[in-house]
Structure formats: C-alpha cells, structure tokens
C-alpha cells in the first residue's frame, strides 16, 4: 500500500518536474538525468572506469558505429537503436543498466521517454548549465497578475499546469515576511501599523528601501555566506583552539551593506591580494579561502594537510561560485560531469601557491597574515603618525640647531651611558659580583667591559625576569669571548638534554661555533630554531645579539655579530605549543651540564622588544662614550661609533630642547608599536614568490604525486579571457566574465533559495548532470542575465524578487495545491518556512527588546549550558559574556567548530567544518525543549513580559502587544481567549507560590523590574507561549 502510493507520487512528481505528453522531449531536462544516473558510471566521462568505448556523455561517441557494426542510437529510429533495445529489454541478462551490478531497470516512463527522444531525432545539447546565459524574453502570461518579469515566467508554468496563483498576503504578513527576508528581524509594531494603514505599492517600496539600507541587512545576508565560507572562530581538527577571522566576517557584512557588486565581491575574496596596490580591505577579503580548518595536531604530517587545505579551497570555491562538485575529481575523473582528474589539479594549482604551512598554529592565526586594524584603530594610528611626523621634524630641527654643540660642547660625565630604552635586564658584572651557581667565576676585563669568566660549571642566575613566550618580542645581547665551541650565552630554559637537543624556553647559544637562537617547547616537532651560517672565531672578543619579533615564525629572528646582521639557516620552523617556562633567566647556561659557557661574558642584556639594525649599531659598539666624544671632537671618530654617540647625545647629553624632542619621538614610537601590536590580524592569501609546482596526485593521496600540471580551467567551460593572467586573479576574472555559464546562475539561485526556501535548482551546490534540473530554467536565466546586466547589483535583484507578485502571494496551502504541488515547486503560493537558527534567536532578542545593535568586532559568548566544552576537551571552560555581549545577533556568537553552539545546531545551522550552501530545516523535539527551556528564551520571555506590562494597562491589550511584536498581527478572538486563559492560570499558580515565581524570574542575567512578581511570572509564561508558537518561528 505504502509502496503503491510511493509509485503514484513518483509519477506525479516526475510529471510535474519534467515532461508533459504534448511537449517534445528535451534532452537536458528529460534525457540527460536518466543517462547520468544510470549510464555514466560505466559509459561516462571517467576514463578509468569506462568499460567500453561507448560514451553517453558525448554525442559523437553515442551515435557512432559500435564494434559490432550496429549503432547505439540511430536518430529517428528507436527500433534500430541498440541502446533502446537494451534498456527496454525484458531479459535481465541483456538489459541495461545491468542487473548483475545491482541496478534496477529504468522505469516504464523513462523507457518511453528514451524511445520518444530517439524517435524525435535524438537531439543532443550541452548540459544546460554549461551553456551561455542568454536573456530569455518573459512569456506573455499572467498579464493581469504579473508585477514584473518573474511573475510572467511563474504564470506561464502555472497556466500550463492549470493552476492559479494565490491572492496577495495581508499587509502585516507581507511586511513581516519581507523584514525577515531582508534583515532577519521582525518589523516593529509601528512599522506594521503604518503599512497596514497604507499598504500602497509606494509604501511597500519605501519599506523595502528602509530595510535594504538598514545595517541589519548586511548582517542577515552575511550569515549564509559564513556557512558557505566555513567561517569559524576556532581552527578545527583535534585541538580546535581560537583563531581570529572576525575582521573578514566584518568585511562581508560591510560588503553587503555597501551593496558591493557581486563580481567585485567575488574577485576580492578569490584574488584581492593580486589586485594592483590592494587595500587592506581587499587583502582581508581573501580570508575567504583561509577560513578552512587548520590542523595543529602534534603528529600531523604537514605535507598531508597542506594538500587538504588546497583541496578544501577548490571544493569551496567550486561549490560556492560555480555550483560544481569538483571534489569528485580529486581521486579520479568525475563520474558524471566533464571534469577530468587532471583538470581538478589544474584548478588546484591556482590555490596551491599560497605561502602557508601544513601544520597550523594551535593558537591564533597562521601566516600568511595581514594586520587589519579597525576604523577606530586606523584613526588612532593616523593621530599618532601625525604627531610623530611633527615630532620627528622637531627633532631634526633641534639636531641641526645643536650640531655645533655636539662637536664642541658634549662632555659625557661618567661616560657610562647605555641604550636603555625597553631594557628589561642587564648583567654588567660591574662591580664584579652577582649570584652565581656552581663555582664562583673569576672576573676580568673584556675590552672595555667588566666580564665574568665562566669555567663550564658555573652560571649566573638572574632570577624570574624576562618571562617571554612565543608571542613576545625580545632581544638578547652580550659581549663574549668563548674558549669552547659550545655553550649557552643567555637562556631562560628548563633543564633538559644536552644541546643540540630541545629544552622548553628561549635562548641564545653558541653551538659548534655558530650562534643559535631558539624559542621552543620540549616536544620534538614543535620549535623555532635558527643559526648563523658562518661560525664565529673562538677566543676573540665578539658582540652577539639576537632579536625575535613575536610572530611565531623563524622569519621573526635576526642575529647580529659585531653589529652585522648574519645570514641565517632555519633549522626548524614549527611553533605550536606555548613556550613559557618557570625556570629563571640565566647567563652562561645551557639546558644540560655540558652546555655551560667556557670563556668570558660581559654586558649581557635583555630588551623586551626586537631591536632594529639602527639600535643594534648603538649597542654593539664597544668603546665608551667618553672616548668616542673625544675622537669626534678631534675629527677622528669612526662611522661605526657615531650611532652610539648620537643616541647618547639625544638621550642624555644634548641640550634640553633636543632631549625633549627626542623623548617625545621615543614615546610616540613606542605608542605606535604598542598600537600596531594590538591590531587584529586576518589570515589571507599570499602566494609564494617562487611559486610551487603542482602535481596530479594518484588517488588524491598527498604522497603519490604523478605528472606536473600547470594551472588551467576545465575544457568544458569557457577559456580564460585572453588578457587575463593565469593566476587566481585571472581565474576570478574568468568566473565573472559575461560568457561564464555558471557564476551568475549559481549566485541568483542561492538568493532565490534564501527567499523562497528552495532554489530554482534545488541542489544549489550541484549544477552538474546529477543536480536537480531547474524548475523554471528560463526564469533562472532571466534572473542571471538581469543580475549581470545590472552590474551584479544584489540589492536591486532582491528588490525585483520581493516586489514580484509571486513573492507577495499568501502562503496558505490551498487544497488543490496540496494535491497537485505539495512541495510548492510551481510557486502558486508563497512558501511557509521555519526561520533559520540565527533568526529564531535574533527575533526573540528583538521582540523582547534585549537585542543590541552593535555591528562587528570579536565574537561573543552568549548563554551555553555549563560544562559542554569541558566534557569533550581538556581544560576549556566556557564563560558567557555579560551585558550587551549577551544580546548580540547570533552571527557574532563564538563558533568553536568541534563543539559548535548547541542551540544553533539544533535548529539546523551548518557546522562550519566544511562549505555548506544548503541546509535542510528539520522539526524535532530538541527544538521544542530548546525554545521552552533554554535560558536565552526564558529570559527573553521575561523581558518581553516586562515590555508587555509596561506598554499597556489591560491584560488583553498587553497580550495583543506581545503577540503583535512577535507575529506582526493581533490575535483573533479565539487566540486571545487561549492566551488569556493561560495567563490567568499562570497568575493564580504564581500568586499561590511566590517562591516558584521568584525562581522562574531569576533565570538569566537580565533583571525583573516589575513589582508584582506573580503578575510578571504569569506574563512571562504567556510571552514564552508566544515565542514558542509555530507562527513565531515561521516566515509565513
């Protein structure tokens, strides 16, 4: 019985979606899906799995002579066509598709379609979505009903089916619908009242205009884009620690709010970095393809994950912009679409040039990065820069004015000036003493300095100073005269194995004659190490300095020997875990007993910033100031001595105005550094200058490279524009070219899906042979052409859609529609769709008055059940934010990929681990529990209750007001009666149990400023009822 019904409905549905008896058979609509589903696996595009030379994805092959001299397809003659004979065969042994491979035969309808198609001439055409988009003329239909071209296409199809459109929705319903569709928030009662009073077309247009300029529009449009772009606030995979991509998220919001044309929107996200002189915003946009997960697991093979990231970029880019399932061709030629495995890797090559690493940082953003200050920070920076420019001018003037003074007047008093800007620690051994471990050292002079002479046993313990981690910038410097090739100079490390093994912490070491600098943990695969290429001379007095800028890559290291920057070798560049240690800072120390320094060390310093070359020039010049000054006055000072002289002069010995000007510059420079350090970063696309060769990978495996390929686009699609470079920028321009058959269709289909709940192509992620055929192909093309011709104007297209008569229909399900078109494919009514996860929460916050309207910024943490993170991950606690951050729109909620916000997932939000452009809407008991019991909604109900109580005096008016806030209409008498009964029941219950009322009113951080607790609890119950209504969480 059930299966009979099923068959019946398959027939009805099939008829609906495709061919009618009086139409001619259309290859793309009617035949290709049959061939793709049933034949392509063995007779399709995949060279490796094809079992014979016969192909049904290729017209020439399909109509060519078979080896036995017969023909698979003879146009006009089904009886002579072997293919028809095989699919229609009653004999399972010869029937196609083959029973032995587990295939069911084609249905009678499909066989008949094949027969008719061959009989009608077996016309072949390119897969519909691969043909150029031409603007079809709207049919001459629905002339009395239609408001714009959309309606003519819809009406045409309805006429064919013998259905009438639905009447226009009420003003209130329409305003709520369009408000939810364009901003994700309901209209205010004032807006509703105004529109109900004047529901004219002009008034409707004004409301649309208002909604489109509201910043809420950009937030609402951004949300599905974040799903598509797999945006999240954590890195994913095993450890899943925080990353910071919110500047990219804010870029998306702004782009929608500014109505950035979709072609620019695309180009900037795919290749903003390759534009000429890209702005910071254009660089930030490329974060799109860095939003993929990044693996920081300790044992992960970087080569393997590097491949996964590139594959993710290809899959995401092809799904989002092209509606192609390119990922299918990673391991083998695509089974259904004209995409070879080689072409997959040619496309992959565009995204394989990025200078990123296979293993991502566990915490924070992984290079390549860009600092992406906010507007406020840019303003601060501009302010500092202006002041700095002025101060530098002042300093230069003072310096010129005092030049004679330097020559004649400078008389350093004690001559012991040192460069002490941001000096955190200094061991001068002058006077010669200090806390030493092991034996007591001897002291000697090293050049002009007092030095401690270490014997390989002793070391100097400086205590708990200079506690730097891998995010901190610092400089280590000293004068040394080594007597052995290995020994620690300055280090803050835990004791461990002998050098060159690893110890947790940082240090500047002499190892086998070379200067090494390290920041590392004790894990074998987790460290940053560099060393100088050239060894230093043993037994010679040498100044060494190492700097690190806190960027967690070895690019951040510089080593200077006698003030000269040294070429470095990177030994390992794989920073992952925190490097802080509780061990003290020590001089002459290495992690093991054998690593202690032999020889003299003088004037060891630690600065808490990375000194520049200019500054190293100052500290690496050994002679005392006094002698430099004297030499200078006698015109015999060396050039190398001048930086030190000038620095001291400005800092301490020059005339007062000069010193003041210098200190102003210093202060501003430090403020600037600190401000720069506070700028958020974004992971961006930046290609390796030298490029990277791409190989086809056998079976898609990272360790099975086959032949090299060069970047290119699939042959079944148009060629790159002639003037386009063969890089990501060229690829982006190819995607937006007028001739590209997919980009505009895919984009408008997704917008249609957002508004109508289903795309014209239902499989919005797959426009290939296996995707659903469009229900209204001409409408899709008209919209796509309109979009491109309007300059990819997204707001204009949305306006066209929401002003159509199609959009403005009622969503009531008329009996004949239920019978004829239960899925509403024909749009003889408006869809009735449950709101998305984010919109459900945002609406509750809006109607309760709790919603804060701050745009952008770091992600926030609203309520979440206690212990969720801790259960699954170590030592991670979730503490909800307070005040306005509790009530931000849901797109700002902190998204941890492996433990995503549960209430969002319950309402079908995408998980953000991979690209998702279409989510089913389910209807489950967990959703009911969530809306009834989550503190978010319990608290919102109370806030709504206070709003209701505050606004009106009578119970009915109050109920009406709350209902109106949530649904944009007043309740009917029956509804009011039910609400009113529920209210009075709750009132008597809470009057009798004040403690219960009190407990109920304490949920959440928001207060309950209403004197009568029983009354408030009763209204909160009614408000909760309103928030739980099917109508409230549904767009009608």
């Amino acid at each position, binding site marked *: 019985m059930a299966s009979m019904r099923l068959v019946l409905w398959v027939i009805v549905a099939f008829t609906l979606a495709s061919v009618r008896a009086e139409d001619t058979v259309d290859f793309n609509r009617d035949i290709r899906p049959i061939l793709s589903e049933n034949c392509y696996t063995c007779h399709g595009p995949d060279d490796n799995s094809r079992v014979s030379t016969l192909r049904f994805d290729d017209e020439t092959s399909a109509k060519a002579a078979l080896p036995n001299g017969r023909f698979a397809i003879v146009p006009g003659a089904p009886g002579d066509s072997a293919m028809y004979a095989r699919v229609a065969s009653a004999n399972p042994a010869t029937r196609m598709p083959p029973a032995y491979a587990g295939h069911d035969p084609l249905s009678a309808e499909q066989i008949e379609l094949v027969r008719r198609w061959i009989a009608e001439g077996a016309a072949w055409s390119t897969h519909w979505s691969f043909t150029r988009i031409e603007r079809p003329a709207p049919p001459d239909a629905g002339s009395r009903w239609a408001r714009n071209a959309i309606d003519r296409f819809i009406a045409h199809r309805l006429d064919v089916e013998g259905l009438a459109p639905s009447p226009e929705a009420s003003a209130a319903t329409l305003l709520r619908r369009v408000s939810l569709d364009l901003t994700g928030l309901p209209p205010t009662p004032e807006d509703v009242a105004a529109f109900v009073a004047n529901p004219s077309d002009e008034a409707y247009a004004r409301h649309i205009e208002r909604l489109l300029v509201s910043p809420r529009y950009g937030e609402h449009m951004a949300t599905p884009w974040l799903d598509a772009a797999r945006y999240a606030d954590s890195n994913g995979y095993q450890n899943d620690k925080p990353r910071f991509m919110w500047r990219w998220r804010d870029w998306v919001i702004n782009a929608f709010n500014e109505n950035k044309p979709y072609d620019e929107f695309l180009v900037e996200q795919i290749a903003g970095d390759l534009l000429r002189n890209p702005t910071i915003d254009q660089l930030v946009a490329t974060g799109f393809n860095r939003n993929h997960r990044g693996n920081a697991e300790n044992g992960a093979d970087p080569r393997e994950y590097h491949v996964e990231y590139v594959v993710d970029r290809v899959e995401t880019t092809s799904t989002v912009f092209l509606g192609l399932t390119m990922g299918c061709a990673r391991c083998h030629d695509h089974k259904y679409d004209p995409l070879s495995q080689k072409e997959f890797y040619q496309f992959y090559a565009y995204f394989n040039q990025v200078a990123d690493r296979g293993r991502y940082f566990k915490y924070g953003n992984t290079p390549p990065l860009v600092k992406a200050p906010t507007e406020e920070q840019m303003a601060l920076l501009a302010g500092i820069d202006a002041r700095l420019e002025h101060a530098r001018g002042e300093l230069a003037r003072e310096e010129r004015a005092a030049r004679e003074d330097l020559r004649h007047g400078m008389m350093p008093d004690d001559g012991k000036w040192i460069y002490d800007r941001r000096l955190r620690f200094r061991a001068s051994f002058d006077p010669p003493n200090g806390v030493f471990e092991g034996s007591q050292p001897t002291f000697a002079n090293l050049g002009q300095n007092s030095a401690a002479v270490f014997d390989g046993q002793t070391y100097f313990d400086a205590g708990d100073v200079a506690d730097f981690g891998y995010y901190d910038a610092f400089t280590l410097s000293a004068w040394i005269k080594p007597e052995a090739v290995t020994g620690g100079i300055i280090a803050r490390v835990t004791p461990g194995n002998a050098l060159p093994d690893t110890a947790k912490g940082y240090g500047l070491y002499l190892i086998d004659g070379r200067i090494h600098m390290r920041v590392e943990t004790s894990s074998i695969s987790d460290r940053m190490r560099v060393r100088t290429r050239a060894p230093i001379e043993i037994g010679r007095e040498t100044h060494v300095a190492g700097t690190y800028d806190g960027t967690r890559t070895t690019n951040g290291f510089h080593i200077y020997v006698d003030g000269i920057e040294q070429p470095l070798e990177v030994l390992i560049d794989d920073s992952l875990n925190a490097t802080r240690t509780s061990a003290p800072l020590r001089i002459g120390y290495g992690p093991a007993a054998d690593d202690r320094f032999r020889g003299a060390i003088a004037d060891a310093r630690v600065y808490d910033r990375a000194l520049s070359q200019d500054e190293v020039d100052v500290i690496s010049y050994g002679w005392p100031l006094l002698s430099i000054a004297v030499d200078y006055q006698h015109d015999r000072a060396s050039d190398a001595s001048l930086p030190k002289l000038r620095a001291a002069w400005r800092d301490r010995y020059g005339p007062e105005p000069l010193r003041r000007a210098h200190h102003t510059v210093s202060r501003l420079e430090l403020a600037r550094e600190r401000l720069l350090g506070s700028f958020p970063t974004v992971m961006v696309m930046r290609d390796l200058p030298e490029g990277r060769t791409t190989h086809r990978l056998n079976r898609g495996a990272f360790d099975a490279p086959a032949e090299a390929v060069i970047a290119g686009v699939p042959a079944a699609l148009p060629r790159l524009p002639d003037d386009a470079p063969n890089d990501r920028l060229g690829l982006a321009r190819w995607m937006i070219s007028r001739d590209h058959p997919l980009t505009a269709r895919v984009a408008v289909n997704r917008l249609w899906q957002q508004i109508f709940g289903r795309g014209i192509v239902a499989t919005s992620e797959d426009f290939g042979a296996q995707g659903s055929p469009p229900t209204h192909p001409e409408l899709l093309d008209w919209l796509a052409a309109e979009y491109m011709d309007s300059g990819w104007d997204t707001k204009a297209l949305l306006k066209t859609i929401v002003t159509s008569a199609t959009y403005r229909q009622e969503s009531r399900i008329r009996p004949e529609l239920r019978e004829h078109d239960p899925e509403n494919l024909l749009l003889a009514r408006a869809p009735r769709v449950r709101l998305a996860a984010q919109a459900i929460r945002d609406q509750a916050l809006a109607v309760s008055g709790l919603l804060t309207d701050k745009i952008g910024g770091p992600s926030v943490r609203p309520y979440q059940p206690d212990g969720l993170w801790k259960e699954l991950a170590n030592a991670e606690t979730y503490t909800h934010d307070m005040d306005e951050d509790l009530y931000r729109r849901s797109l700002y909620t902190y998204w941890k990929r492996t433990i995503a916000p549960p209430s969002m*997932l319950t309402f079908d939000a995408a998980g953000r681990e991979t690209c998702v452009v279409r989510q089913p809407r389910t209807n489950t008991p967990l959703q009911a529990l969530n809306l009834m019991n989550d503190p978010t909604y319990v608290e919102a109900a109370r806030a709504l209750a206070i709003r209701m109580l505050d606004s009106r005096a009578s119970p009915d008016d109050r109920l009406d007001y709350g209902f109106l806030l949530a649904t944009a209409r007043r309740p009917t008498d029956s509804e009011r009666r039910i609400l009113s009964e529920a209210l009075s029941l709750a009132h008597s219950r809470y009057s009798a149990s004040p403690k219960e009322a009190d407990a109920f009113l304490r949920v959440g951080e928001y207060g309950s400023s209403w004197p009568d607790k029983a009354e408030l609890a009763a209204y909160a119950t009614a408000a909760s009822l309103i928030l739980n209504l099917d109508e409230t969480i549904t767009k009608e």
Partner: protein
Amino acid sequence: MKPLLDPLDYTRRRFFARSALGAGTAALAHLLGNDLRAASAGHPHPPLPGLPHFAGKAKRVIYLFQSGGPAQHDLFDPKPGLAKLDGSEMPDSVRGNQRLTGMTAAQASFPVAASRMQFRQHGQSGAWLSDVLPHTAKVVDDICFIKSLHTDAINHDPAITFLQTGFQLAGRPSLGAWLAYGLGSVNENLPAYVVMVSRGKNAGQPLYSRLWGSGWLPTRYQGIKFRAGADPVLYLSNPPGVNSEDRRHFLDALSAMNTLRHEEYGDPEIETRIAQYEMAYRMQSSVPELTDLSGESDATFEMYGPDARKPGTYAANCILARRLAERGVRSIQLFHRGWDMHNNLPKRLGEQCADTDQPTAALLKDLKQRGLLDETLIVWGGEFGRTVYCQGKMTPDNYGRDHHPRCFTVWMAGGGVKGGISHGQTDDFSYNIVENPVSVHDLHATMLHCLGVDHTKLTYKYQGRNFRLTDVHGVVQKQLLVA
C-alpha cells in the same frame, strides 16, 4: 517502561489518515535528494523502504569507543618473543616504509619495548589477555577478537573521524546517524541514537561533536549526547519555577494555538510541530526515568564496579547503555577518553583499565543474563594501535608508544557474532598484519550486516552522488558471524 499514554494519538491518527500527502512529499523529496520524513512524522520514524535488507541478528549496537588508541601489545596481542629484544633497535625490515607521526619521525632510535604486562589464557577458548583486564578475561568466550584491524590514518582527528564516519575528513554522517536514517527508531520516547562520553584519571585527547553528527543527513539523525547531571539532554529540564503540570498547561495552550493556525494555513509542518512538542514533553519524563539508576539493585552496582554509582563515569554509562538497550534504542555509543599513551604507559594503562575493564565485562554479562546479548551487537575498540617501539625515554619499568595504524585489536560480541574466537594475526612485533587483514570499511560493513543492512545499499544522495558509509569499499567478514 511502556510508553506513557500518548496524548497525541488522536492528532497522529488524524494526520496519518490524510497522509497520502505525506508519502508524496517524501517521494518527491527523494527525487530532489532530500529526505523529508522529518516533515511528515515525528519520532518514532519507520525504517527506509526496503530496510532492513534482511533479518539481522542484532536489533541494536552498543559501540564502546576507546578514544586515543589502546595499546594492542599490552592488552590483547602478546608477543613473548620481544622480551629478548627489549631495548634493541627495531629491525628496518619490519618498519619498512611505514610513515611515522611527526612526534617520532625525528627520533634517532626506535628501541623495541616489550610489554611489561603479564599475559594468560582464559576461558574455554583460551584467549590471551593481559592481567590488566581481569574482568574481560571472564567473558572472553563471548568475544570475537579482531587482531588485524588496520586504518589509513595516523593522527587522532582523522583516525577517529574515519572510524566514526568512514572518511578521514569532517563532513560525513556518523555510523549511528546512518543507522538512525536507515533503520529509524522504535522507541517513541527516546532518540534513535544516544551518545555518552566519559573520562577517567587520564583526560586524554578531546572529542568533537561531529563524531556523532549527521554530516549532510538531516540533523534529526545526529546522536543525542546524554550528559551526567540534571539535564541529561540539553534543555530537557523545565526552568526553575516551572513544574510538569505547568508545562502541561503550557503545552495545551500552545497546541490549541498551533491547531488554530493549522486550520488556517493547512501546513502539515504545524502538525509535526505539535507532535514534536508532545514528544519533548514525553522525553521530560522518559529520559529522567532512564537515567535514574536508583531502581538498580546493589548486585548490579557491584557487578559494574566501584564507579557505577558515580554519574558520568564509564561504569555508570555502561549501566545506562544497558537501560537504553532495554528500551530499544537503536544505536548507543560510549566514548571513553584517555588511551593515548605516548609516555608512562604501564601506569596509565593500569588506571585506564581499572576504569573500564569491569564495567565493560559487566555490560556483557548483564545483557546476557537479561537475554539481550544475542540481539545487541557490542563493539569495543579505539581509532588505531600503538607502536612496538618506544616513544621517548625508555627505562626498565617505563615506556611510551606512538600511534600505529598498521594493526590493532578491536573486539565484537553478541548480536550475531561468534564468541570465543580470534581473527587475524600480526607479525612478531605486532607491527604488520600477516593474516586476515580487516579494514575499517570491512568492520563497518560487518557491523551493518549484523543489523540487517547491506552496506552497499544504504545510500544517500548528496552532491549528485549516492554516498555510503563504506564509500566504495567494505567486505562483510562473514567468518566472524554465526550462520
């Protein structure tokens, strides 16, 4: 244990009476690559048409997932010959070109670490087990050990994801979600797929909710995580100041309002919504009834061991697993963390087994004495094995082992599995498989087979392709199953 009186019976009957529409929606949706059963029925939901494909011995599965990678050398796969090689360099011929994790790839030497555990034979089957599993030792005759499982992944995230979803990267449905999708649910008061997580003294590696997620299947098929404490299911409890009677009144009013809207709009989704709120209400009593262990006998608590009375422990979760099995829940999965022993293995393995051995064995015994073992498939195992060579510093009584994908041991019991057998063999180092390799896909195919599902036929169309749990692989290991 009988479902409560169903207040919605009337609604449901009325609904299904008109349900030609429902079936049509589903069929049409199927053409569109969707699954809209969610829109046409609440819990419970029927199996897909044609499922089960044949009569499976098992009606349900309890998967006792041991997260982190239990060391096969120290538990199930004794290699006495290693004693004399202890501390010596592992022969290159054994290691071959096996990839290593980044943690030991740079290690200068790979000394063989013979297990410090004592092994003995147990039961009529004479199964070898190490002494850290004294309780499992008593039920070995019900167990089928697979000593030759192998995986493609070498790090936790991809390896666990592979075991749970059949694919190393995130995005695909979990095994339990596949079962909920294919076989539906038989208990109308409980979810079809329940997950519980625990940890003992060893915290271990994190878990991820995708491991019980529904991937691109509709979210209703995802595993529902039961938690220890007041709210076993998220948001199950009414807020303070709202009792069950208040909730009943609330739902009556809500249902009345929604019914009015349904009369106005004729949308079947509204009826489903009403039904789901009623299901939620029933869960508010059925779930606490399930998780309330106060009715369990002292003998039961003793059988499951000292942790059994502590909510949230592996032992308490094992009792809950039995209670879920009794109530017909299709797919029950425990995740216990802490098996990732790169160092300090002897001490930590002892602790880990003290947390898990007794409850695991008790679950088998308990199901058996209640006559449920034959219809319940139990699977015990982690995401990979561990290396024979030592990671880090090796001392006479201390060593660690790195991840090892080439061979590891899992076991199955009950639900159509032959007890008292051992399948597959590894070489003298338990480094390579020498006989009867079993892939993760094979394991999945075999598990589905026990449940009456042909793994090649349980498919879902997504991105134009019919996906399976086993991708294009998987061979049912019939030799492990009773005829």
